[in-house]
């Protein structure tokens, strides 16, 4: 199929001399190794020069046509008419592009086409008839060239029509398979969250997953023996460093509030993505390995309304421009005031429809947040009467579950392609 359409264009003979080396042509791959050694190719400039000289040479050597200029003009005219008739008949009979090309060579070939020779012989014609004869011959040449071009156009149109009709593709057949990989849905969601906050000027910071108990708990105001520790069931590392320093798998990304503030001066505006761990039994909504993103902004003039504005922008970016948010009172030892943020449920059409996601409350809890506790600001060495801040923590799996309607959090880390390739 491909060949029939391309042949006419490639076969334009001397009108388009073949390039000495076509960089796009497929290379003959892996010719039997070592059995032949390719020659260094002739540089392009040399090739061109040679071809041109060759043509000149052949033109000079061409013989004059056997043409008798002594005949009367009318006879010559008749002869030209006969010539036209013969040529056009031959063109009609020419078969395919090869036939047309042979016809062109016979009649219009630059070297010894029958018409070419006659035109070349014009210089020998008597001066009085040269003009009239030349006019007739050139008219004939134009006619023949026009006819040839028309034939070629029509053949090309026929071939294209055949390609469109008879050789039409079944476009519903499968494409040639390519290897497809996707980012994990948690990565995708994390990237979207990072982008949303990055647009608001938040920098990314990362901290260790294996963390000191001091950073995970004490430094964020969750001392030993405080019932708030029940909010974070902890996987502990069984090695004590120096007999007392206890390591754990961080239960949240919040210790990085401390790590960031220890390392920088206000203004602070960071997000901290990463894995967290909980010692808890798994079910459809609980998993022991989680992914969180922590946010922290500390500066002069950071207000709780800024927290609401920041999270509002985030919610609309992730869950749709028409989202609404509310805060309700909550308690986290490291913020004061503390809130949970909920978004209006976009999954249930109307209240009372037994919505599994919002339990018909119309609101879906998405994250915890609050104003950074003044003690934490002070502990970082900042003046809490001057600097205020907000912090928030988002569960990425929860966001991913909401956006895609995933019913069971345990799918995320089973690495089942049938799950993963849907995202």
């Amino acid at each position, binding site marked *: 199929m491909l060949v029939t359409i391309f042949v006419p264009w490639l076969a334009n003979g001397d009108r388009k001399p073949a390039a000495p080396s076509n960089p796009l042509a497929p290379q003959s*791959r892996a010719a039997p*190794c*070592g059995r032949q*050694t*390719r020659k*260094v190719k002739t*540089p392009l400039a040399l090739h061109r020069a040679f071809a041109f000289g060759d043509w000149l040479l052949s033109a000079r050597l061409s013989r004059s046509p056997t043409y008798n200029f002594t005949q009367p003009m009318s006879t010559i005219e008749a002869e030209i008419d006969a010539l036209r008739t013969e040529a056009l008949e031959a063109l009609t009979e020419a078969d395919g592009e090869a036939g047309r090309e042979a016809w062109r060579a016979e009649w219009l070939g630059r070297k010894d086409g029958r018409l070419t020779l006659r035109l070349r012989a014009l210089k020998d014609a008597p001066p009085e008839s040269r003009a009239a004869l030349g006019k007739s011959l050139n008219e004939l040449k134009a006619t023949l060239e026009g006819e040839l071009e028309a034939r070629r156009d029509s053949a090309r149109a026929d071939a294209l029509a055949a390609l469109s009709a008879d050789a039409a593709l079944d476009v519903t057949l499968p494409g040639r*398979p390519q*290897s497809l*990989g996707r*980012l*994990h849905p948690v990565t995708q969601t994390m990237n979207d969250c990072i982008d949303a906050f990055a647009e*608001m*000027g938040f*920098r990314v910071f*990362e901290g*260790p*997953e*294996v*963390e*000191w108990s001091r950073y995970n708990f004490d430094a964020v105001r969750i001392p030993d*023996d*405080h*019932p*708030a520790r029940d909010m974070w069931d902890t996987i*502990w*590392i*069984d090695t004590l*460093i120096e007999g007392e320093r206890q*390591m754990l798998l961080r239960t949240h990304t919040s210790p990085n509030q401390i790590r960031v503030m220890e390392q*920088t001066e206000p*203004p602070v505006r*960071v997000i901290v993505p990463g*894995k967290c761990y909980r*010692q808890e*039994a798994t079910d459809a909504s609980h998993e022991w*390995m989680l992914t969180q993103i922590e946010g922290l902004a500390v*500066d002069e*003039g*950071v*207000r*709780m*309304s*800024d927290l*609401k*504005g920041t999270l509002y922008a985030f919610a609309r970016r992730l869950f749709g421009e028409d989202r609404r948010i*509310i*805060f*309700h009172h909550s*308690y986290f030892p490291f913020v*004061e*005031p503390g809130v*949970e943020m909920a978004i209006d449920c976009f999954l249930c059409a109307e209240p009372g429809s037994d919505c599994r996601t919002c*339990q018909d*409350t119309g609101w879906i809890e998405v994250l915890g947040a609050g104003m950074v506790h003044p003690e934490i600001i002070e502990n970082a060495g900042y003046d809490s009467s001057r600097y205020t801040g907000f912090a928030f923590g988002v569960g990425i799996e929860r966001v991913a579950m909401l956006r895609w309607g995933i019913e069971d959090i345990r799918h995320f880390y089973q*690495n089942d*392609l*049938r799950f*993963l*390739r849907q995202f």
Partner: protein
Amino acid sequence: MKLPLSWLRDYVDVDLPPAEFATRVTDAIAEVEGWEVIGEQWDPELVRVAEVLAVDPHPNADRLVLATVNVGDGPKTVVCGAPNVASGQKVAFATEGAMLIDGHSGKLSKLKLRAIRGVDSAGMVLSEKELGLSDDHEGILELPGDCAIGAPLVEAIGDVVFDVSTWANRADLLGIFGFAREVAAVTGQPLREPDRSYSQSERPASDFVSVTIEAPDLCRRFTASIIEGIEMGPSPAWMQQRLIRAGMRPINNVVDVTNYVMLETGQPLHAFDYDLVRGAEIRPRRARPGETLTTLDDIERDLDSDMLMICDGEGPVAVAGIMGGGNSEVSESTKTVLLEVANFHPGAIRRTSTQLKLRSEASLRFEKGIGPDLASYAQDRALHLLEQVAGGRPAAGLVDAFPTPLPSPRITLPAARIEQVLGIPIEAAEVRRILVALGFDVAERGDAFEVTPPFWRPDVALPDDVVEELIRIYGYENLPTTVLRGALPEAQPRPLERVREQARELAAGLGFQEVVSYTLTSEEILSRVVPSNDEDRTGPLAAMNPVASQHTYLRTSLRGSLLSAYAGNRHHEDAAMRFFEVGVEYLPTEADLPHERPVLCAVLGGQRLERWERPGPERLDFFDAKGAVETLLGDLGVEGAFTAEEHFAMLPGHSATVSVGDESVGVVAQVHPDVAAAFDIEEPVFLIELWFEPLTRAIPERPDYAPPSRYPEARRDLALLVPADTPASALLEVIRTHRARGVRISADVFDEYRGEGVPAGQKSLALAVRFRADDRTLGEKDVVRIEQGLLRRLDQDLDATLRA
């Protein structure tokens, strides 16, 4: 916590429908997780309160009786089979058409009356099961005595029980009265205090008992009262009903009063049988070595010296704040009660209850922190109730050991702080209204509020704590959304993370599916892929309390995770699979947190898909893996060098180290078939590992640049015979470094051939060699001369000869 609306209504009027009430409470107080409506199906016309006037035998049946009941419109006769029906009782009575739970099938159905053993019944006296209150179908439900005859049952005992989750710092919300105070503040309704009045006998309580606190750091206050003339028995029906709805089991009138007051005020109480308290003295002290106590749940507890015990003249009688001892328990024979209402150090209670693995309603409250002043409040309330329901007569006064009463904290809240934190001001009048409703004292001094939190709010200590009180009651819906102002922090360069994320994107682009695996694994899986002599990676950190034994060790390699993922998916995938994960290896570090070494690990293998999406005859191989690495590195702007090197768990001869410049950055190899088999992989599978730390170091800040040459390059294809073990890279390196007359030479391998025509022990490599000069077009003679020189060098260095 279970919060029965009927109980809450003792202290504050609530007219909101349950859903709206739940929303208001969740917004400002604590999270309502759900609620249960009691009596939703009881028709007010058909299910009503009745009084039993008489009980007579059924003429035709031994097990049935005829009860005469009054529903307010004259006596009616009902056939009844319950053993406990008795005259004088208030009962629930249903007439034809009422929707009830069928006692046998358990399904909701419409009551149809019929004659039973020849006697017509005017209706039905109901059990708890028939009313849907419990599964109890043994006897009828006896209603509290104050229910009005003829009243719809739903009005008498219908209820909504909310399930509320409160906060770790708010013991006061674990008391229904404390909860009511918050509801009153939110709805603006007045709050009604519970009755705390009682009469006292002449004899002072201090005649009965002395209290000496020996551990004032653990016991902040201890009050004791004495109630004589107790008549032990069941508590009244109304009290039992409330306890049950709040989730507690009625025991007897004295214990029920202590539980009732705890549920009401949040302050735990404990009743001792006074006659079992030895020596007429109470000594809160630390446990002594070897001491034990059998608690009320009949378990003998080993004690240690950090645990506070309530002791009498001889030894422990209770684990302070957690559970009483069996040796001093009130019982049917109790005549005099010693009522303890105390205050303990919250952390100590939590530590002890954790150590004893004993959580109780009392310990849950104490560990959150209770104001010491609540003790006398709860004493008064309990004495009032004991007098009402147990016939007791309180001795005069309390025995009150309160070594160092804490002064009430005074908090200065500048008015400007409210706006500084919230972004909005709150008017002074509103500040006063909110705080007063919550029980705070407020005085205005200049531009600040002087605030004294009430004794039940030890959690409020700082100005910002007060700001939270204000905004949650004022309403978060009144907080506007604003945009962060001010300067942005400086951007920190994060080259490693940039490289890591670029590699992650490209790996997916190259057809690898990203996976994320559990980072804790088993020692067995690690030992399959990590050599025991790898100092960095052996001795992985272990979890003390893993969620499961296969998730005990922090992985020091991602290989096991990827091979497991590959094996798991092979069950349902026919064709080639490619997976990658970006994670860290947790490498133990002396006396510090582990080094979390970032790595990309990938595995691939299987049959390549052919035209029709079917697995074709061609399998992925080493060079698919290597090609992926080359593209990854190329995307990062560097070129990798591959050196044959054995790696643990990899197939020798099919294993390479990847390096960039001087840095060794990774591995590409076929996984050893034995190792693959251990993961249940029965086909060739290939592995890639790239470590981001050396890789990031190896990436130049900017690529080397040279302008494109103005002169054409000449190309010669050469077939060279070399010893079979000579790597192609050695030829390329010689060619790359060959210098001749200012001509740059580069080359690519385009074939490897062994077999016919090539001597044994040798191989033929086909190279496309390119020559380029920066200052001239190379002529044929030039090229031939340089090529000759190059061939001589190859022959000298590598024993390579031009193939004839």
